[in-house]
């Protein structure tokens, strides 16, 4: 196992609707927890990377402002963005900064305060995370883009609405027990019953996706502290090592997407690269966090990551194989669907979950058997960017 760069501290704010504070105060919540987790002070940190998607709050160039508030000046700091995958991209950047020998300890902080704008404004912002010249003029938004994948996939592979609901039911099982999640209500099949006015999750958003198939906007922050091998060993009793990093990109316009029945190409590309770097296969993964911004996205992720053959992702849900006690536990913290999806904080939150799982500190969400290798799959935009990061216990 390669031991070059480790995670020595993780933190996350609660993911909430309408955080009562500004972005610097929101960032502090995750930072404080990660620093206390690592047991270090700002003197031990020699650079910081801040990650979010622009145009939710009004702060331009947030890195300097947040670094000051967190006590991380005069160390170098800058901003990284890849929409929904911003903070896993930030971790890739932090890894590179350490691997290059430029820095020993790097703080990667993801944040998003989505509640500063309305839900309709948020849909417009997210739609403009795709092709503003040729697609946004039609009134595009994220649920509609993912629905294009869902429609073609369901038609070819026999995936049903009950299967999609199954993803949400699994998510809810863990959302209920995750104190940091925004959606903690139990979800039952009746919530998806067509034509029942009481069934809050059944209404169409972008058909075939319904309310219950979509993750919720949220405010939140996440923080990952990375260190080189020497510092990790001297500062941390429980380092979790980065074993593999893969990343990929794809054409933005739907007209340039090769095949809507095969899922997101970046998921396949990033996974192949991460497995190669780690020298492992999908069979070695004991616990995973995948980007379930929509239920269909989790099914497609199973296939991109090699957990299921193409078109067979539904079997994992039907067999409950991705529950905590199943053969391949996925999103047992509630995923984006239940935790909420504060864009820039999401990747760091997924990484935190895997780090806690590998340390055996995931509480009621802990996967049994002492998982030693975990994976994070974080997608930006409609498969515009994809990051897969593999972690191992020391």
């Amino acid at each position, binding site marked *: 196992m390669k031991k070059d760069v480790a995670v020595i501290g993780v933190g996350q704010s609660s993911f909430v609707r309408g955080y009562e504070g500004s972005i610097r105060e929101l960032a502090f919540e995750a930072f404080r927890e990660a620093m206390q987790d690592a047991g270090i002070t700002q003197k031990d940190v020699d650079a910081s990377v801040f990650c979010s998607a622009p145009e939710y709050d009004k702060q331009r160039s947030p890195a300097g402002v947040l670094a000051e508030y967190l006590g991380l000046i005069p160390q170098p700091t800058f901003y990284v963005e890849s929409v929904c995958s911003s903070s896993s991209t930030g971790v890739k950047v932090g890894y590179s900064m350490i691997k290059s020998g430029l820095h020993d300890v790097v703080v990667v902080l993801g944040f998003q305060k989505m509640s500063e704008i*309305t839900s*309709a*404004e948020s*849909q*417009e912002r*997210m*739609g*403009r995370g795709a*092709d*503003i*010249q*040729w*697609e*946004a*003029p*039609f*009134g*595009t*938004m994220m*649920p*509609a883009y993912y*629905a*294009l*994948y*869902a*429609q*073609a996939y369901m*038609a070819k592979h026999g995936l049903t609405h009950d299967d999609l609901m199954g993803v949400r039911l699994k998510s809810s099982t863990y959302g209920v027990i995750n104190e940091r999640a925004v959606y903690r209500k139990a979800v039952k099949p009746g919530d998806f019953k067509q034509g029942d006015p009481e069934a809050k999750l059944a*209404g*169409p*958003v*972008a*058909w*075939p*996706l319904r309310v219950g198939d979509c993750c919720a906007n949220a405010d939140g922050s996440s923080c990952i502290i990375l260190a080189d091998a020497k510092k990790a060993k001297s500062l941390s009793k429980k380092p979790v090592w980065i074993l593999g990093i893969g990343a990929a990109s794809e054409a933005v*316009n*739907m*007209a*340039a*997407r090769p095949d*809507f029945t095969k899922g997101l190409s970046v998921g396949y590309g990033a996974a192949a690269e991460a497995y190669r770097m780690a020298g492992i296969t999908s069979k070695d993964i004991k616990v995973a966090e995948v980007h379930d911004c929509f239920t269909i996205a989790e099914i497609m992720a199973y296939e991109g990551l090699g957990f299921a053959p193409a078109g067979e992702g539904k079997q994992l849900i039907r067999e409950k194989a991705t529950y905590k006690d199943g053969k391949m536990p996925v999103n047992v913290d509630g995923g984006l669907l239940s935790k909420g999806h504060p864009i820039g904080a999401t990747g760091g939150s997924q990484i935190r979950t895997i780090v806690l799982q590998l340390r055996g500190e995931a509480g009621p969400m802990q996967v049994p058997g002492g998982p030693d290798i975990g994976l994070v799959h974080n997608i930006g935009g409609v498969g515009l960017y994809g990051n897969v990061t593999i972690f191992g216990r020391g």
Partner: protein
Amino acid sequence: MGFEKFGRKSFTAVTKTAKFVDFLAEGKVEGTVCKDCGARFFPPRADCAKCFSKSMDWFEMPKKGKLETFTTAYYAPFGFEADPPYTMGVVDFGGGLKLFARLAKEIKPDEIKVGMDVIIRPFKYDDNQLSFEIAKG
């Protein structure tokens, strides 16, 4: 200028491919083709990333294709609130050419199927914004 006339609401005013809108006004949906290497593009591009040529010509898109996938939006982003429900889809013409657009309002939701024959045609909104749409083949 000129491209602000494209679509229900354009987010781009200036582009070297703004002539696309003039073609729509003439009743044509056009892509671009590289004069040097022959690569064809839709949506149109002003520059060829295959051979680095900036020399482009226009070509008329095929009219008939198959609907590869679609979705009906029941909510709309800011600025499009008057429109839902509306259906958007991807048309595959074969040979690597595809197109994303809304489907014509006249098509009933239960008539829309993956793989159905469709045509594309220019379309003008009530406020004279110019676009193109997918209709039954």
